[in-house]
């Protein structure tokens, strides 16, 4: 009896400790965003790095974190969700920060979709910018010329992008993977050139005048009043993208623990052996293309409506490279890792404005270093557990 009571006490203590560490982490994230001067920002970053190293290296701390997490999965996740939802409240006087977080969310969706292709079927798709653009331009054009509501355009943009993924993917199924990467690259640049030069896409000026989405009488262009606080209008889009990230993550979980996810992993390792198990490789590859493009299209539509205008500059080859970096850094076939990768690749450069100019250079170097040192990403794929 006493042993049982002891164990319960231990469990509760480790739970509290874990939630304590989680709070510290959230605090660090908050301060990282709030501070304005470089020194404080660097200090917070250093603290975060130290904390991660400490958790990795100090065995007792490592144990606390691991046990704490396994005992309190639900409270931990709920706590995390509450923190994420509370962000606009914490930053209600700093709309730009909410915008940065929104941007991170967009790239997280792009990354999660790309992860299905790279992490699962080994297709390094450099066309994220093109699918993103497809969703953005499709929704913008339909909104302006056909007056369709944002909520209808959201899935429609996804479908348009998925259709393009299908048209691009299907003929390429016999193409070897590295040739396919080049095809996607060429495709992205073609799309960029066309968008820049064609009249009906607005050329270099793009398309403007996209209206704000509406829910009932509430427009996304107006602030939200919540519990007596007034949150800037960016919060509307923030909550929307958090919801979409949640859905994409949820879909990823389902894909992973399914016959489909297993088939994708098989294809990634050995296409011929996969075919010999009865896996239709072509179908699965095209499916991963379409799934990726679908979510990219949705992200594109959200992007278009959040900005009110779009131009080809937002859809250059460099954008594709950014998304690829996020997946390579975050972890191939690890959704949580990809989200973290988005945080690292988008949030940090935004705050370290000094380095904004050097962003692409740093990305290039990071890719090379990651490929040399940890090609499977910071958080490689975990083993599936059943039961």
């Amino acid at each position: 009896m006493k042993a049982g009571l002891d164990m319960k006490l231990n469990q509760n203590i480790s739970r509290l400790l874990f939630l304590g560490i989680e709070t510290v982490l959230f605090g660090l994230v908050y301060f990282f965003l709030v501070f304005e001067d470089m020194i404080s920002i660097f200090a917070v970053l250093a603290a975060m790095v130290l904390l991660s190293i400490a958790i990795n290296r100090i065995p007792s701390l490592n144990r606390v974190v691991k046990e704490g997490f396994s005992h309190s999965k639900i409270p931990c996740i709920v706590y995390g969700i509450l923190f994420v939802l509370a962000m606009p409240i914490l930053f209600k006087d700093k709309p730009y920060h909410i915008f940065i977080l929104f941007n991170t969310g967009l790239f997280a969706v792009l990354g999660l979709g790309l992860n299905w292709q790279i992490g699962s079927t080994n297709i390094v798709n450099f066309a994220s910018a093109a699918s993103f653009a497809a969703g953005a331009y499709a929704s913008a054009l339909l909104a302006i010329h056909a007056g369709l509501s944002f909520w209808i355009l959201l899935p429609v943009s996804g479908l348009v992008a998925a259709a393009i993924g299908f048209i691009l993917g299907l003929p390429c199924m016999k193409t070897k993977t590295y040739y396919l990467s080049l095809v996607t690259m060429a495709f992205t640049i073609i799309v960029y050139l066309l968008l820049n030069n064609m009249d009906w896409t607005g050329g270099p000026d793009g398309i403007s005048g996209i209206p704000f989405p509406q829910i009932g009488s509430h427009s996304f262009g107006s602030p939200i009043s919540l519990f007596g606080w007034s949150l800037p209008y960016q919060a509307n889009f923030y909550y929307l993208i958090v919801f979409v990230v949640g859905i994409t993550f949820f879909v990823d979980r389902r894909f992973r623990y399914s016959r489909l996810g297993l088939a994708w992993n098989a294809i990634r390792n050995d296409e011929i052996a996969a075919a010999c198990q009865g896996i239709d490789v072509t179908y699965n590859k095209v499916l991963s293309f379409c799934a990726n493009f679908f979510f990219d299209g949705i992200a594109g539509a959200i992007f278009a409506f959040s900005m009110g205008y779009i131009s080809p500059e937002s859809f250059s080859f460099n954008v594709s490279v950014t998304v690829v970096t996020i997946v390579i850094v975050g972890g191939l076939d690890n959704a949580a890792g990809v989200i973290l990768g988005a945080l690292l690749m988008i949030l940090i450069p935004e705050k370290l404005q000094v380095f904004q100019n050097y962003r692409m250079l740093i990305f290039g170097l990071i890719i090379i270093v990651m490929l040399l040192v940890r090609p499977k990403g910071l958080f490689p794929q975990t083993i599936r557990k059943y039961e």
Partner: protein
Amino acid sequence: MAQLIEQLTFALMLSSTYTLISVGFALFFGAINIIHFSHGDVAILGAFFGIILYGVFGLTRVFGAIPSWIVTPIVFVVTCLLIGFLGTFFERTVIKPFRKSPLLMVLVATIALGIVIREVVRLFYPQGSNPQVFPKLLPQTIYGVGHLVLRLDHILIFLISLLLIVAMFFMINKTRIGMAIRAVSQDIEAANLMGINSDIVIAVTFMIGSILAGLAGLLIGSYQTLVRFDMGLMLGIKGFSAAVVGGLGSIYGAIAGSIVLGFVESLVCAYVPGGTPYKDVFAFVIVIFFLVFKPSGILGKTMPVRI
């Protein structure tokens, strides 16, 4: 008629510059089966080095005017050698570590390398994001014959490229090191077993390819008179398309592909109304078509896969 001849000379010149780059792609693919995505950026580095060197000479004019017929060859030779070494350096650091890894990783690594090169130029060269004026290294004489206007520099570019390509052919087919290169590109393991140090051969291959690329950068700078840090991406893709069209791994193929590409591009510019902004699109569409439907190109080497 006059215009046609002018267009043809332009097309020949364009093709020859593309050849210098696409041959590099063919050599690299032949040697170690990689697609060196930053090869175009290495070429543009040649142009930038040329500008810097010329500037250095400009400073030394204080000590007495050095005639341009001395400056130009020195700039050319020094730049090409420097780029040759730089290209080999990149191979040792970014490509060699991935020799046993899946091909995809090398591809992504070289794409990243291209980004690094472009950004370094953009950030560290003064006013890097703006187009830079390329000095007039080649004589600017223009010959007029009736309605026909021929530029000496265009002709020189074509001749210089031709000369170097022939030199490279000679080297690959008639010298011992050339034979080693051919051996390595056919079967690297067998070559190793025959006592050929494939590592050195690969380095030499990259040296040759990069020297040609450096030359291409200088020549392109000469006729375009303006160079920008991001021209390398387009150039690389075009050089690569030419190599693919002709058949990756085949030098003749690279030449054939470059001729096709150069001619299509200049003819589209000249004769298709409103076609100029789309000329690059053509290059990419061609490359997609060949990659998807005929990756062995017109004269290519296909890689049989051992199952």
